[in-house]
Structure formats: structure tokens, C-alpha cells
């Protein structure tokens, strides 16, 4: 009457219990097929993720770009320790300090080189009338600590020539059509253009480089004053050790390592200016993406309620259905992240300029799919709650 397999009910139950991996594989495949079959819904959901990725990653790319613009002077400077006026949060023109600090630094153990840095605001007169603001940087040419970088035209040795400056190439037209050898009035003195840098544009006016003496003259800073002391650490010492020693000897200024200064600038910018604005737009992108994915997955479940009921009736558990929805979420997140990051990279190439760099760092490329996966998994919870409540008996009604 019956074959052996039928009689051995216990064996059949045991086989089903043993077959976890087969069920996992089958439900993963089913989840993917269900998502891909409903093409308009798939496209709509992926577009939601792409929208979230583009908005969030583009905003973060601009934020990283702006942070870079404001930390690049410190980052590119070969100084490992800075002595700065008390309360300094940025590397920009500020209070002046006594040159005694430079002398103190030079006799401190662990200091290989110490140089003064002048950083002062000044103006350049344009031939057509009017003036533009500059951030004048005076550099010790013997150490070149704090000297020009990203040089596109010229040699730093030319700064040794009298009244010669390096200007920012990206704003040469704005500064009055500068060319090598052009003579302009800066700080009330006639100076000559000796070279150009590219992209040295912080929030403030563009950097303009001169030797220390010229900078003091143009900015009217006496010889016994300076803005920063830049220190290169001797071998066998760490920047932290040298900074600690300097702190024990100096009480009229702050001593900060290059790494700490970078972090301080970033944290100050995020707290004071950029954080709220970019944080809001990034969060907005994520929230919109979350809502689109959530509604799309929920409506997909509602549209296929009977199918989910059938799957439950034939023996799939809530965990199996959760796996299906999770797989769909991960697929939406990965496809959306991939396309979204591609678009952001294209946008970054398209809109990056000397003034605005859109930076998509590796951490953003790695974090985006992870964040999107978490977002999509959270967005699937509403659909999952509906599936979990589903009675398998509904298929008979």
C-alpha cells in the first residue's frame, strides 16, 4: 500500500530538520527571484537607495573636501610639532607671539629644527582697481617648514630673491591676471610673482608665500614676533615626547602635534560650522532612502501576501521568510550603493575644482554599502512584522 519512505514518518521529519542549509539556499534564491521579478518595484527600491547614497555620499564627499582644504596646510607641512597662540583652532592668521618661543624650542631636547612662521592677512591691489584679500605666509627658507606645496610653476629658491612671492594659480585672474614676473602691490609694497601653487584655498583668502623677512615687511610684523613656531623632531624622539617637553617649558602658548592639530581643526569645523549643515543633509538623504525602501518592501509584501502565506503553509518558518527579506535588503543596498557610489565618483570628477574638492575616500566607499545594508535591513522590519503576523491558514480562506 505505502512505500517505505511514507511509512518512515520520523525519518522524513528528521530529514527536514537536518536540511537547514538546503532551506537557507532555497529561500535565499527565492528572495532574490521575488525581488528581481517585480522589475518596476525593484527599480523603484534601488532608485531609493541610489538617491540616499548620492545625497549622503555627495554631501560627505563635499564635507571631506572642505575639511581637506582646511587641514591641508597642516597636513602638507613637514613640521611635526607646532607652537601656537593659546586657544588656536585653525592654522590661519591670528595672535602674534614672542620670538622667545622659537629660541626656547631650539634649545629643547628632541628638536631637530625649529622655524618661525608668519601668517597674516594682507591685500593685493589689482591693476583694474580694487583689492583682494590674501593670507600671507612667511617661511624660513633654510628649513622650508610651512613652505609652499602643490607648486605648478616656479622654484622655491626664487623666494630668496627680493620682493618675490608665490601666488595661488586658481585665483590668478581674480587677483588681477597674474603671470610669472608680474609686479603688483601687496601690503603697500611692490612685489613680483615668482611662482604658483594650485588648490591652496582654505575657507579664508588664498595662501601667498614669501620669505620670512619679506612677509614681516608686508604684514608689518616686527622681528621679535611671529605667528607660529614649527618644529621638526630629532630622530629617536616622538612628536608626543617633544610636545610634552615643550609644554613643560612653555606656559604662554599651546604646543600641539601635527596629528592633534589636524584633529582639532576637523572637530572645530564639524562642531562650529560644517557638522550641522552637512550632517542634516546627509541624514535627510538616509531618511528619504529609508522611507522609500521601507514602503517599497512593505508594499511588496502586501502585494504578495498570499504567496507568503502559501510559503508558510508549506512549511517555511518566520526565520525563512526573514532571511528572504534580508537577502532582498542586502541586494537593494549593494546594487544601490554600487550605482550610487559610481554616480558620486562621476559627480566628484565633474564638480571638483581648486576651490571645492569632492573627496570620496576609501572609508566612504567601504562604509556606504555597510550603512546602506543596515538601513535596508531596518527598513525591512515593517514588512517583516507583517509577514511574521501572517497566519498560514489564510491560504484556505
Amino acid at each position, binding site marked *: *500500500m*505505502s*512505500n517505505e*519512505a*511514507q*511509512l518512515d*514518518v520520523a525519518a*522524513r*521529519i528528521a*530529514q*527536514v*530538520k*537536518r*536540511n537547514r542549509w*538546503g*532551506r537557507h*539556499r*532555497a*529561500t535565499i534564491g*527565492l528572495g532574490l*527571484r*521575488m525581488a*528581481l*521579478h*517585480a522589475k518596476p518595484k525593484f527599480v523603484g527600491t534601488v532608485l531609493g537607495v541610489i538617491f540616499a547614497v548620492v545625497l549622503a555620499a555627495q554631501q560627505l564627499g563635499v564635507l571631506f573636501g572642505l575639511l581637506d582644504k582646511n587641514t591641508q596646510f597642516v597636513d602638507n607641512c613637514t613640521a611635526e610639532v607646532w607652537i601656537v597662540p593659546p586657544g588656536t583652532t585653525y592654522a590661519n592668521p591670528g595672535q602674534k607671539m614672542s620670538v622667545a618661543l622659537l629660541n626656547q624650542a631650539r634649545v629643547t631636547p628632541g628638536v631637530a629644527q625649529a622655524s618661525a612662521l608668519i601668517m597674516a592677512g594682507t591685500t593685493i591691489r589689482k591693476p583694474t582697481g580694487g583689492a583682494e584679500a590674501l593670507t600671507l605666509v612667511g617661511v624660513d627658507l633654510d628649513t622650508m617648514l610651512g613652505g609652499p606645496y602643490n607648486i605648478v610653476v616656479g622654484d622655491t629658491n626664487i623666494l630668496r630673491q627680493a620682493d618675490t612671492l608665490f601666488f595661488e594659480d586658481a585665483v590668478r585672474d581674480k587677483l588681477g591676471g597674474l603671470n610669472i614676473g608680474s609686479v603688483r602691490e601687496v601690503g603697500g609694497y611692490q612685489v613680483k610673482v615668482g611662482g604658483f601653487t594650485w588648490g591652496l584655498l582654505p575657507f579664508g583668502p588664498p595662501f601667498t608665500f614669501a620669505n620670512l623677512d619679506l612677509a614681516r615687511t608686508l604684514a608689518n610684523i616686527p622681528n621679535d614676533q611671529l605667528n607660529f613656531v614649527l618644529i621638526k623632531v630629532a630622530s629617536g624622539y616622538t612628536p608626543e615626547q617633544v610636545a610634552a617637553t615643550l609644554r613643560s617649558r612653555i606656559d604662554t602658548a599651546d604646543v600641539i602635534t601635527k596629528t592633534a592639530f589636524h584633529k582639532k581643526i576637523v572637530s572645530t569645523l564639524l562642531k562650529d560650522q560644517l557638522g550641522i549643515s552637512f550632517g542634516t543633509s546627509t541624514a535627510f538623504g538616509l531618511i528619504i532612502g529609508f522611507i522609500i525602501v521601507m514602503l517599497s518592501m512593505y508594499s511588496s509584501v502586501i502585494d*504578495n501576501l*498570499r*504567496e507568503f*502565506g*502559501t*510559503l*508558510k*503553509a*508549506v*512549511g*517555511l*518558518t518566520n526565520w*525563512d521568510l526573514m532571511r528572504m527579506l534580508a537577502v532582498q535588503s542586502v541586494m537593494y543596498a549593494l546594487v544601490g550603493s554600487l550605482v550610487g557610489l559610481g554616480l558620486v565618483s562621476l559627480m566628484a570628477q565633474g564638480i571638483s575644482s581648486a576651490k571645492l574638492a569632492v573627496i570620496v575616500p576609501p572609508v566612504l566607499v567601504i562604509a556606504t554599502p555597510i550603512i546602506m545594508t543596515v538601513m535596508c535591513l531596518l527598513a525591512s522590519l515593517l514588512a517583516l512584522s507583517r509577514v511574521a503576523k501572517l*497566519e*498560514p*491558514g489564510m*491560504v*484556505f*480562506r
Partner: protein
Amino acid sequence: MSNLAIDARGVNKTFGTGALAFQALKDVDFQVKRGELVMLVGPSGSGKTTLLSILGCVLTASAGVVELFGTNITSLRERQLPVLRQALIGFVFQGHNLISSLTALQNVALILETRGVKRRHAHDEAAALLKRVGLGDKLNSFPDQLSGGQRQRVAIARAVAGKPPLVFADEPTAALDAHAGLEVTKILTEMCRENGTSVVVVTHDNRIFHLADRIVHIEDGQITDGHTAAAAATSATAH
């Protein structure tokens, strides 16, 4: 070993509570032998689908005992029931209930894969079953590319895939014309008889009564009587 595939004793089912309580099943005793094909008939609202749902482990009884092949399912926890359904039961639903995103082949193979059959074997077996129900040329068709009768044939192939010892069919002919209805029920009964499967079919359709071993009538939540198929068919013809 008991010869019974299904042994339900004193089964009650009440929906709702208080003044809104509705007793759908009243002390129902119902037995099906191994390999037997029973048709459960009765008017709408008589409780036949409720009984089928309880026997199919998708609904729990309010009282009474239900044993499937000697296993008391009323004593099992809810989370244990899916395993039982997967291991023992094939379902044919009134509205076919195929997964719209899967082809006919994938719909049948899915059940086998979830039961532990390797993918390739599952596809081979599914293809053989679909050929058996006359859909050898529709393996890669999606449900919306099939007629109602073809869909129900896929549903039958899905229900018997893996040769479950029990198959429950809920109004399998309801959405089909007379010819197609008879055709799919014949296929279902033939395949189940070959496998020695016990079958319970809920139906209104007296044109298929002759395919059953036994007809059981249910009315107002109670089993009223049971006939052999021949007697029921004669009675239906007389009506």
C-alpha cells in the same frame, strides 16, 4: 503500527470569544486510513475548510486530539508544526497559490529543495512531475503565462513533489470548468494512489465524487455521515 494516517477525535474549534464566539467544529471524529482518498463535502460554512486547516497543521484545535501517523499534533508547539507540514503534507489550494516570480519548474522544485533534495535532483524530479501532469512544454512558464487548469496542474505537481504521505486539497476544481476540474482531480488521485498517499479533498463538486474511496459529510461543524464513493455518486446522480 496504526493503519491510520489521520485520527482526529473530539475536535472542537471556536473562533472569537464571549458573545462573538462562533463554534466552527463540534466534537468532530474523523479518520483516514493510509492510502485512502476521502472527500469532505458540505455546504459553505459547514466547517470543512476549518477541519482541513486543523488536519493540515495550519490551525490549532480548541479541544480534541489530532494524530497524523501516530504523532499527536495537538500536543506540539506552534514552532514545531512547520517541520511537520514540510515533512508530511502536500497542499493543493483553491486558487493554486503558485509563487508568481517562479516558473512552473521552480515552483515545484522549491518544495523539494526546502525538503533537502539537491538542486539538480530537485529540478529533474520537478520536470518529471510536470511532464507527468502534461506540462512538459511549460516548464519555464510563469504562472501568469498558464491557464487556470495548467496552474492547478502545477499546484498538484507541487503538492505531490517528494511523495508526501498526506495531501490536502481545498476545492481544487472550484476555479476550473467541468472538464478541467475532472482532469486535474483525476491526475491528483492517480498520482496519490501510485504513491500510496492519503488524500483529503474538500469539495462541492459532485462530478468528482466517484474518484473518492469515501465521502464524508459535514454540516454545522459536525460530521453527519460517511458513504462509500459509489453510494455518494449514486446519491449525487439521483439529485
